């Protein structure tokens, strides 16, 4: 029941701004963020703590907790602006057309309901089907996310399951309404690497087979390089670069992106016993929300920064397969 026209983005975010209301005024946490995702595409939003990636994810479902609020922009899902909907209308869209999974499924699962009851509830909330039909669908969903022995798991409580199993239950719940967009906020960060691989290949398979668009929030560039089509890099609340994954790693254009990639330990960085190749450090720290520079937020840490960077925020410019917001984008190769 997809409404998406081929090549038309299923989700289009335009000029999204999010701020925190404080006694000292409105502190901007996400600023003029624009991006879109097509059916079956996996877009990653990456960046370090406090860059605004998780707030962005919450905003896509109208879930920003106070004192945070959306201060501007639109979030169009299949053509409809979610930010203009009232809570009742939003609730009908949530779960049905856009769904979310979190890092720690226990925070989203109800501990006093069995796994089966929760998934059934998610189905019944959006569809006028009988309980019997909902139960059948639930078992099919548990099977779909490869939970062994679905009949038995149906009757189990969340705390009885392993972390990996809980995340599968979350995914089954998210899929209950066959959403057009799945927002995944660090879904494997708390999991072991072999379990992470299972969950990521499951998400990958779902978007290929069901055409679900995935917005994947992560800090893990390794995961991005293996599973994601396109990457959006955020720094201090703004998009600094957006590229096809392969291009981003082969030729990062923004000095911050270059810094992030260079800070990652590489295979065979110096033989054992020999002097290790030093990792690239990004000097300094991220500016506080209350002390954001007037120009480029990365300027105080950037080796290329000059007067222009201190004065003016660089607008996103076309660059190959994507966009980069840097006054010196062409010069970063000199680093």
């Amino acid at each position, binding site marked *: 029941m997809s409404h998406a026209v081929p090549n038309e983005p299923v989700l289009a975010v335009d000029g999204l701004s999010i701020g925190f209301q404080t006694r000292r005024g409105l502190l901007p946490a996400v600023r003029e963020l624009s991006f879109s995702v097509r059916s079956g595409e996996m877009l990653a939003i990456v960046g370090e703590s406090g860059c605004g990636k998780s707030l962005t994810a919450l905003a896509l479902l109208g879930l920003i907790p106070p004192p945070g609020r959306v201060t501007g922009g639109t979030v169009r899902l299949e053509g409809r602006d979610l930010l203009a909907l009232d809570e009742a209308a939003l609730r009908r869209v949530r779960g049905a057309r856009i769904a979310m999974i979190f890092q720690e499924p226990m925070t989203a699962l109800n501990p006093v309901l069995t796994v089966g009851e929760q998934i059934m509830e998610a189905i019944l909330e959006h569809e006028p089907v009988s309980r019997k039909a909902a139960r059948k669908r639930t078992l099919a969903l548990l099977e779909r996310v490869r939970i062994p022995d679905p009949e038995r798991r149906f009757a189990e409580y969340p705390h009885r399951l392993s972390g990996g199993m809980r995340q599968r239950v979350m995914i089954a719940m998210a899929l209950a309404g066959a959403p057009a967009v799945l927002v995944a906020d660090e879904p494997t960060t708390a999991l072991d690497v072999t379990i992470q691989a299972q969950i990521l290949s499951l998400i990958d398979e779902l978007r290929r087979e069901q055409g679900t668009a995935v917005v994947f929030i992560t800090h893990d560039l390794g995961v991005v*390089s293996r599973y994601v089509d396109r990457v959006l890099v955020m720094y201090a609340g703004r998009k600094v670069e957006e590229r096809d994954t392969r291009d981003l790693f082969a030729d990062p254009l923004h000095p911050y992106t270059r810094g992030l990639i260079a800070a990652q330990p590489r295979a065979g960085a110096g033989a054992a016993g020999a002097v290790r190749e030093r990792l690239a450090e990004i000097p300094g720290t991220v500016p506080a929300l209350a002390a954001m520079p007037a120009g480029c937020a990365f300027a105080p840490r950037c080796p290329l920064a000059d007067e222009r960077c201190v004065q003016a925020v660089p607008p996103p410019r076309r660059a190959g397969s994507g966009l980069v917001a840097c006054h010196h984008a062409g010069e970063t190769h000199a680093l």
Partner: protein
Amino acid sequence: MPSDAVLAAPAVSAPVTATPVLRVSGLSVEYRTARGVVHALDNVSFELAPGETLGIVGESGCGKSTLARAVVRLLDPSAGTIRLGETDITHATRRRMRAARRDLQMVLQDPAASLDPRWTVGDLLAEPLEIHGIGSRAERRARVADLLDKVGLPPEAAQRRPHEFSGGQRQRIGIARALALEPKVVVLDEPVSALDVSVQAQILNLLTDLQRTLGVSFLFIGHDLSVVEYVSDRVAVMYLGRIVELGGRDSLWRRPAHPYTRALLDAAPRIDGPSAPAGPGLTGDTPSPYDLPSGCRFHTRCPIAADVCRRLAPAMQALSPGHHVACHFPDSGSEPPSMQSAINS
């Protein structure tokens, strides 16, 4: 003790001639809980050479944090010995352990948990010196300034309290405190796991620099394979309380011989690695530590497990000098991976 047959594990020695600063031999730890006995660590042996970093990797429940805590005697082992230099500290009394702590220190993942928030950083760094009666007040103050400088913090940091610092700076304080007594061995338990990648790079560079100038040995516990590969000279891979493979970093990464090591390396994506996993990956979860599999503990998830694996725990065997594996069917690296043929058949 687990009921399955455990063959005597030969001592796994470092490929260096220097006398080890730390020798752990046949170490086992059991927890008694309401649900039963957990064999958290089973017959673990390794040595640590001066100035060397031994990385310990594995997933939840593999026993790596238990190992870290047992080595510094925060936990009492149920069997085995721990030798720090020439001293057997396995059953050292509290007083004897206090003396041993001059040579054996620990850094935790969250330094905030180990740094008293009411103390200034200067007091926190001077405390170990005071306990051991080292130097006059003025000398201790000078030593604190020196320690701050070593870990890249300004001298003014001594007057501030831990909460005034960022996560990366707090980890620098934790490292400075661990180094105050110039220990021979520092056990680092997931020291960069809570940090952003740019800060992680700063701390890893700092550890590398300190090791080079001080000659200290590190036992580095981690779950991020690229980090462990980066910092380690040798690496031990653990699964459900046992070391399944131990070898030189490059040897282990290029020729992983244990099916678990291969699956682990294959599952961890990295930006300079292959764009897709080579194998199908492991299925299922790690078995419960309350109900350990018989024989080789990996056999329930192993793609090449045979009958012998269910019956008999494999002994550590040397594949090449310094590279040891506990598997009945280790991959020698010369033939096509037996994993694939086993799956296809």
